[in-house]
């Protein structure tokens, strides 16, 4: 069973990326954390780190491929112990998904009219009226009529999609108040030198909730460096020891724990140990959670969603790992049920795989903490008066000061670091 390496979403809005360069070639041995390729979007260039170990069996998209859709398989990895001869047998997935660049501007509903400075959308009068009644921007609806004209059935399917999508409740007028009006912003730029991508429901929800959080929740931040070598080593041996399971044509390990799974477990245990930090602010008092339910931020095309691992403190690494895989998969297919992403007593946002050193996340109320995980990188440290290369990961906890004070947050950070640096304790 080859492991698929896919085009990552470098931002919640990213749809496709260009593969600018591979740093490894077919047949190379790869370790977790190795930088294997460079991906480029319209916004940035990023390096991809290997998450799994193995031998790079096949490169699907060569250097310089443009417009590879997010989540397309870009390379295949096989188990280290597998005979490299087998590599040739691994077939490429059918139909690599390369995004076609739209050249026909007349079908692009997002074209701007210079004269009117408003979005020119071909649509039927009835479609416009239905969209207005449903509070949907007509420009956000793909048209199926001649030359991309938006017709009644398009609006109806958009309404259906909205009503059945897994996006949290969308309220009317959920657009947050703007510091500047649209017109004031558009005036700053030259007509014709930009395009406007209309908001979808999820984007509006993200905007509304985060504005609300940043404006009403007093955040403060605690950053701590954790040494990762012990954890990486433990992970390797845990995964190596995985019993094999026979399937029809191969035998595969029964589990494969990721670094993220171990972080989830560590956060859960840290909060269990510091119950005063496993809380939420209520106007009437402090809500103390008995269990630890952890939301894990997952980037999906055009948005972001945080499925919840419930009772993570009580679950084994293997259970957490399997649950995460299923949640992430369904999150990307937008098939999560509201119960699977609503609630949660804390959250984790992990950008380590993108090479981010450290960052601060915005709280998702009523959660009082969120752990922002940076990448594990080799740093030179002085230990026992000697210079040593150590793998270090920076973690920043954002905290709701209404319910958690500085000292308590520091204690939580320390506990978390202790668990990460003594990973055997998370197995108990």
């Amino acid at each position, binding site marked *: 069973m080859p492991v698929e390496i896919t085009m990552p979403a470098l931002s919640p809005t990213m749809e496709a990326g260009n593969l600018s360069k591979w740093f490894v070639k077919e047949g190379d041995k790869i370790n977790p954390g190795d930088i294997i390729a460079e991906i480029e979007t319209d916004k940035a260039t990023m390096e991809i780190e290997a998450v799994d170990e193995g031998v790079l069996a096949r490169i699907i998209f060569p250097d310089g491929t443009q417009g590879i859709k997010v989540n397309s398989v870009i390379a295949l990895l096989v188990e280290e112990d597998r005979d490299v001869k087998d590599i040739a047998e691994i077939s490429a997935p059918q139909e690599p998904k390369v995004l076609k660049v739209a050249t026909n501007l007349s079908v692009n509903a997002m074209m701007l009219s210079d004269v009117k400075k408003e979005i020119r959308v071909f649509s*039927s*009068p*009835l479609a416009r*009226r*239905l969209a207005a*009644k449903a509070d949907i921007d007509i420009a956000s609806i793909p048209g199926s009529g*001649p030359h991309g004209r938006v*017709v*009644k059935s398009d609006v109806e399917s958009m309404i259906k999609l909205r009503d059945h999508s897994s996006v949290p409740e969308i309220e009317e007028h959920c657009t947050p108040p703007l510091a500047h009006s649209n017109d004031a912003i558009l005036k700053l730029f030259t007509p014709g030198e930009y395009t406007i991508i209309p908001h979808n429901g999820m984007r509006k929800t993200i905007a509304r909730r985060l504005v609300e959080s940043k404006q009403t929740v007093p955040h403060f931040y605690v950053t701590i460096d954790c040494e990762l070598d012990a954890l990486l080593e433990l992970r390797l041996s845990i995964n190596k020891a995985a019993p094999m399971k026979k399937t029809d044509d191969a035998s595969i390990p029964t589990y494969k724990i990721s670094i993220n799974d171990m972080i989830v477990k560590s956060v859960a245990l840290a909060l269990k140990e510091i119950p005063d930090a496993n809380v939420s602010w209520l106007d009437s008092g402090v809500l103390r959670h008995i269990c630890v339910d952890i939301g894990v931020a997952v980037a999906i095309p055009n948005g972001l969603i945080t499925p919840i691992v419930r009772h993570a403190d009580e679950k084994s690494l293997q259970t957490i790992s399997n649950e995460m895989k299923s949640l992430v998969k369904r999150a990307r297919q937008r098939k999560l049920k509201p119960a699977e992403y609503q609630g949660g007593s804390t959250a984790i946002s992990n950008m380590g795989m993108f090479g981010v050193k450290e960052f601060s996340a915005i709280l998702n109320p009523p959660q009082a903490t969120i752990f922002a995980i940076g990448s594990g990188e080799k740093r030179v440290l002085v230990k026992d008066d000697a210079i040593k290369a150590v793998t270090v990961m920076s973690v920043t906890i954002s905290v709701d000061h209404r319910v958690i004070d500085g000292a308590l947050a520091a204690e939580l950070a320390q506990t978390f670091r202790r668990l990460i640096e003594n990973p055997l304790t998370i197995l108990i």
Partner: protein
Amino acid sequence: MSGIYDIIVIGSGPGGYVAAVRAAQLGFRTAIVEREHLGGICLNWGCIPTKALLRSAEIKHLAEHIKEYGLKLEGSISADIKAIVARSRRVSGRLNNGINLLMKKNKINLIWGEAKLVRAATSGQLAKIIVGNSSKLAMEPQHPIPKEVLGEGIYEAKHIIVATGACPKTLPGMEPDGNLIWSYFEAMIPKTIPKSLVIVGSGAIGIEFASFYRSMGSEVTVIEVLAQIMPLEDAEISAFAHKQLEKRGIRILTRAQIDRVDKGGHFVTVYIEVDGKMQTISAERLISAVGVQGNIANIGLEILGVKTERGCIIVDEWGCTNVSGIYAIGDVTGPPMLAHKAEEEGVICIEKIVGLKTVRSLDKDKIPGCIYCMPQLASVGLTEAKAREIGYDIRIGRYSFAVNGKAIALGEDQGFVKIIFDKKNGQLLGAHMVGAEVTELIQGFVIAMNLETTEEELMHTVFPHPTLSEMMKESVLNAYGIALNA
């Protein structure tokens, strides 16, 4: 003979010949099979020749009222039925010949005979038909068979489109006999005008013949089993037409169940039950106009296992049957059995085969229908009853011919326009008209519907004055309580 094509169309009615032309336009090697008459029933025994007959009736009607227009006619006006029929055949013949020219111009091979499907298009094999002599006795008079046609033999194609159309339904005891009992075939070429006539069925065919024969001087009785004549039309429109037809002297019996039909030497006697009471009506002729049914027999559907249901071939939105390489369009695929529906299906079927990106399936809710009696009827979309049944909250607008300048000037002040909107969002759900020339007006609303206009755009549209079409706009205004000329 034999031949290999990309596309073979079976049947040259409006659906079939249009499909063939579109196929040829798109570069397909195309052949069309016809056993009887180019242009099908529509052009030879339906839409077109009846319009010619009805035109004679209309002119006769005008001539009879010529005084009202300040004109004097010395002598009297009378119908020469032989000449009227001859004109109708000439009109048909001209178009029939036109189809032949169209086929030539588009380099479509014409295969003369009756086709039978014998093989589907399966892996690597073309679909196949055998063309033999027609098993059907052709209705005379026939237009001459075109020269340079291919004959009996085996023909193969990647895609075969069944466009065999429909034929009159018959009820037991009312089988057309060419003498006392007529189908539309005989009714179209009368040698004399019967003094009395019973027409069974009040659909478009029955009512058009009732209108024609009444104009020609026959005593006409229409028998309809349902409560409403022209049962598919909006009840209000139908009721208005009912009254107008009765004013013209046509006797109409609704909820009339036929018990039996007795044929005498010169008369047919129909025993009917109306509201529990038995009645008899005798007439020189009876026209059976109880509907049409798909031509699905003897074309090899059963050999290939093509699925049918209630006398029609089952197809998807693109005309595909359950058998690969075999398609069907038009009347043979079921209602509405209308030439313009068949034409559109033919084009869609071909464009889908080519894979044109612009191809769109047919929205059957937006197909207009016209009936050419006096007064004319035209409609598109939902009737009021149907709209209510579906659960729409509706808004209705009406406007009468009696207050339209052009209608009054024409001397045609009887009729009205009725329009139905969805109250919630202004969607145009249906439009129904009765009165002079409404068959030429309806297309305005059909376009509006297809472009998904709401009442607002219609209100902002300038209609030319003075025209009958102004009534369309006024009906829209009336639906919103702001009609200006009422």
